């Protein structure tokens, strides 16, 4: 009895995000209806969907940037409405990719700004430098810390934004379409970094993308966002070509199971 309860408690602690009967509408038009999903510690969940399938909307609801019409989101078993442990969450927004390249700040300053919420603003210079250095090292950008952000390539900038999200050493990282506008080889490198963070740093990852070809063999779980709902496939083996075709509206030419995808655009 005692043991069972303990297990239940353990299970709960492992549920980092719980989306419960969540609905959302834009100007009265329902875009998500009764969505349920759980993200567990250690997951690498990719949310895929066609343009306009509300996958970014779902992520914004998960991190509290939007308020649900009904239902709720639990983060670390705390209702999002009263959530306060923001340092446990890292978020790479879509906005970040569209920043003005003439923004006058160095890589180091930008990564440090990830510390500023809550008590992070009171960090001593030494602690701050260490946290920033650590985060930049995780994404392999520690050599460029004094460069202006505008001098970097799109792929390098995106890695800096991940470092900014990692600087508080969060348990979970949310990324909203992070590879938009980045060349193919940088995308590969970017996904490899995410895989490394997930496998070697134990960081749970939730990523929104339409880039199924690249993400498929990196993510451990796939969530298909379609018809106002989320369909989570706990293992890659569950995902069929039909699932992907239904979700994205186009067919994958070669087998999903071989983990070698060719996408028909």
């Amino acid at each position, binding site marked *: 009895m005692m043991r069972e309860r303990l297990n239940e408690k353990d299970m709960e602690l492992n549920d980092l995000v719980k989306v419960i009967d969540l609905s959302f509408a834009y100007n009265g038009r329902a875009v998500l209806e009764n969505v349920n999903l759980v993200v567990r510690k250690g997951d690498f969940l990719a949310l895929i969907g066609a343009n306009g399938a509300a996958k970014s909307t779902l992520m914004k609801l998960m991190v509290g940037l939007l308020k649900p019409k009904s239902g709720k989101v639990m983060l670390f078993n705390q209702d999002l409405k009263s959530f306060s442990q923001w340092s446990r969450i890292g978020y790479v927004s879509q*906005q970040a990719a569209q920043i003005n390249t003439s923004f006058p700040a160095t890589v180091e300053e930008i990564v440090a700004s990830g510390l500023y919420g809550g008590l992070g603003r009171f960090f001593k210079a030494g602690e701050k430098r260490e946290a920033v250095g650590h985060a930049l090292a995780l994404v392999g950008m520690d050599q460029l810390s004094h460069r202006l952000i505008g001098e970097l390539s799109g792929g390098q900038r995106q890695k800096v934004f991940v470092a900014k999200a990692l600087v508080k050493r969060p348990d979970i990282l949310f990324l909203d379409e992070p590879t938009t506008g980045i060349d193919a080889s940088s995308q590969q490198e970017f996904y490899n970094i995410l895989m490394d963070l997930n496998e070697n740093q134990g960081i749970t990852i939730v990523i929104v993308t339409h880039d199924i070809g690249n993400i498929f063999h990196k993510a451990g779980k796939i969530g298909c966002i379609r018809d106002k709902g989320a369909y989570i496939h706990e293992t890659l083996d569950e995902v069929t070509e039909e699932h992907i075709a239904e979700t994205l509206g186009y067919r994958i030419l070669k087998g999903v199971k071989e983990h070698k995808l060719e996408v028909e655009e």
Partner: protein
Amino acid sequence: MNILAYDFMQRAFIAGTITAILASTMGVFVVLRRMSLIGDSLSHAALSGVAVGMLFGFYPFYGALIFSALAAFLIEIIRKAFDKYAEVALAVVMSGGMGLAVVLISLGKSFNADLLSYLFGSLVAVTSTDVWLISGLGLIIIVSIIFLSKELFAISFDEESARVSGIEVNKINTYFTLMTAIAVALAVRVVGTLLVSALMVIPAAISLQTAKSFRSTFVIAVTVSVFSVISGLYTSFVFDLAPGGTIVLIASSILMLVIGVKRLGQS
């Protein structure tokens, strides 16, 4: 010739220097948030406040402060109605403020000369009450904005991720808007309605051309601004020119020079 021997020049230098620091500090954030024209909108609204003060017989500077603050909130409200077109709100409030000012001015026919000092600024006509107001409010704003500069930086860079990192974005935005409004009203007294925006935007623009980090952006903007005000005041006194205009001409010459030198360096 020691121009500081004159009381009115001492007041002008104190008020001018504080306004220079204030306008350029706010200006860096205003420019980064793509709100460069907010100074124009607020200062035109402040002008209608000046006219109200003159019409109803209270100190026009107070009218400027109140109307500038009201206009700031009006901008926020209109901005929400035009989600992706922030500049609509700025244009509406600017022309609305000017319209109101013109109507009020035509109602009170006698105060045209006094009004000119608010249109073009009259640093040398700054009273000791003005100096106290500018110093007191100015220092409060400068200190609080420096205190909040980390949060403001994060918000200017990426508002969404600032929210997710737990920064109270709405509260800080409201506070910043209100402080911008007060700063504009203070600057109206010094450089005038028509030139406020220049004092906010030009130093920030120069620093954007030259800065190697965010910290240096501030240092450059404040330095350029203080240099322009002090040298502008001195020049205008010696050659008997309008101080506000002289200050802005010096600042914009520096900007053109920086852009020119940068171009030469690139070619």
